[in-house]
């Protein structure tokens, strides 16, 4: 089932990867999540979450070219796959549905 079982950090990771586009790798994803949400995320949580999403088919990945700044090591680049987009959309639709009518209580407005 699309969106079924997407955890909190999984959603954030998928969104971060989508935002970052071609530059999405573990370090940038972690930085993006922390800067956007104010939430401190451990490095290990990010690595394992990205790999879990890859195993589920929601992320694709490939190794980039190695660079001197990285001690000659490549980085694993991620991108969101079509099933990943569908899963994320389903999860966000579910949240949006639950939020319907609660705008006054939460002082949160859905973007037009």
């Amino acid at each position, binding site marked *: 089932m699309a969106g079924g079982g997407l955890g909190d950090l999984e959603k954030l990771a998928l969104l971060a990867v989508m935002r970052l586009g071609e530059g999405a*790798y*573990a*370090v940038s994803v972690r930085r993006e999540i922390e800067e956007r949400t104010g939430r401190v995320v*451990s*490095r*290990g*949580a990010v*690595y*394992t979450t990205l*790999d*879990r999403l890859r*195993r589920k088919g929601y992320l694709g990945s490939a*190794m980039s070219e*190695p*660079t001197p*700044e*990285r*001690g000659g*090591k*490549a*980085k*694993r680049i991620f991108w969101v796959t079509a099933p990943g987009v569908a899963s994320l959309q389903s999860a966000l639709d579910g949240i949006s549905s639950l939020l319907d009518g609660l705008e006054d209580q939460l002082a949160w407005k859905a973007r037009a």
Partner: protein
Amino acid sequence: MEGTSVSQVARLLMPLVPREHRDGLLGDLTEEELPTARVAVETLGVALWWQLEPYRDRSIRLASLLLWAVGLTWLRLVPAAAGDAAFDPTLYTGPIAMAAAFFWSVPIVPAAIAAGLSVGRLTVVPAWAWAVRLHAALGLAAVGYATANGAALGLAAAGCTVGAAWFGDRARPDDDEHRNVTT
């Protein structure tokens, strides 16, 4: 911090990280130019997350229990079946027969080998969840050591469990991509 220091600290813990992610992690730690102590802490943290990751899956938790159950059964069953068999060299002729008799007179050793092979060979745990096999192998090795008659036999049993698990893992016919054998 020098890149060499990053490698020295992180490489010690790399066997606990999936092989396909090691270069990426080393590169990330180098890129961020973290202090040496921080590298060690970060690498240890990442390694622990990877070790615990398979247990998030209920089916893998059940498979882990199965590995343990099969291993513990071997460790109990074989010594019980061997009973009080003792090695008496005068009863056997030929090196193979004598070796077999000796082998069965220390039943914890074939039991440990059977347990280890089961852990490595059973396909109930997917290849990517290799940490589960590692934990089962080490845990059963400890059980073998504790139940053996004496420290020498205990070490032999523990070593045989881990070695057989490694061998079984190498010989298992499934997805090689995630196999984390350190060779």
